[in-house]
């Protein structure tokens, strides 16, 4: 699942997340759609999202990064993933 980490781009993350969401909430979403105000996902699902992002992209989302706003849309989640990937430096597990 984490095999393609080195070639991560905003585009590939978005695509994967849209697929994951579509499968889980059984409806198609747009990258800039507010998932929470639309009532599509619950706070409970938000937790599953956190765990999914961490496992799929080998990142740790802790403390202040765990705020709602970072998970509102596929776009905000994508930038969160990219920021945390950059912060953790180049992957040493080739």
């Amino acid at each position, binding site marked *: 699942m984490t095999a393609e980490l080195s070639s991560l781009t905003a585009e590939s993350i978005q695509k994967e997340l849209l697929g994951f969401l579509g499968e*889980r*909430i*059984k*409806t198609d979403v747009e990258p800039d759609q507010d998932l929470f105000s639309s009532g*599509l*996902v*619950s*706070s*409970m*699902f*938000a*937790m599953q999202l*956190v*765990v999914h992002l961490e496992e799929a992209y080998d990142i740790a989302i*802790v*403390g*202040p990064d*765990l*705020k*709602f706003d970072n*998970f509102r849309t596929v776009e905000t989640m994508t930038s969160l993933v990219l920021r945390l990937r950059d912060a953790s430096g180049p992957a040493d597990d080739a």
Partner: protein
Amino acid sequence: MAEKPTIVKCLVWDLDNTVWDGTLLEDSDVELFPGIRDVIVELDSRGVLHSVASKNDHDMAWQQLEKLGLAEYFVHPQISWGPKSDAVKEIAERLNFAQTTIAFIDDLPTERAEVTFHAPEVRCYAAEQATELTELPEFSPEVVTVDATRRREMYQAGFRRDAEKESFKGPDEDFLRTLDLVMEIKRADEVDLSRVEELTLRTSQMNATGVHYSDEALRGLLADPDHEVLTVTLTDRFGPHGAVGVLLLRYHQNVWNLKLLATSCRVVTFGAGAVILNWLIDQAAKAGVDLAADFRPTDRNRMMDIAYRFAGFTNDPADNLAELDPPAGEGVQRLHLAPTPKNAPNTMQLIAPGLAADLSRRTDGAARG
């Protein structure tokens, strides 16, 4: 003092020449060994689950268990011609139990050896030991709580729930609404606390705030007007989930301090943590106070951390936290939230005391008297 043995949470039975006297394929009228029914019923009442690993024709063996009036006691029975170690591992996996908490009983030494070889942590017993099992310490939990006696019932309700969830096509929240969930938050009494003790004992099932309060400490606070000890139960149309949570709250002038919030893992998927927090935030908003939640990150309470953050709790400094007692224990953070009114949950019915109203009645009374 000898180390206490790990309590067996599920006992897996062989059938031929262990539960009943004979081989079902040769004698379709086999009878139970004397005393077996008593052992099964007694362990069940202690909260030990039963399952089956038998090399037999599935339908025939299950019909025989039904005929003997025992079928209802067995969860996830594995009746097939495959290796028993596979059956035992499958049962552990389905129940989400560690293999160290599984026991296996069979009359054949070769079957016990096969299980031991592939699942060395599973404890094996010979069939002739069956009637002595209830005397053994590993089958004798120290505390048998209200919930333990109903554990099988709760697991079986869980299986039916899971089966329906799998066949449900739609968002999780819509599915939750079909369950007719009712959460009750109530001020605890002694009996309620003994049910929560069950939660505390089964620590592997817990998402706690990482701050431990002993049963004794909680009991001591039951009558304290500055503290609220609250327990949470959940039921749905499949049956009870039992006691699923406990809260300890300390009132201050301008802040309520949530010192403990623990929920059972069983109810994480129902969003129970978020519903409890939402209710508390709404009550604090009604009372016009801030909330401070004590939290110590551990490797087991990640879900609770996320629940707090998503509810809006932060590490940002706040002036009114100064009036609080120092946090109980090392590494305990104090998360802060300025509450705003919240809507009632849309996935379940919530029955809960009006903390804000009760408190204001109390202060009015005190001012007059």
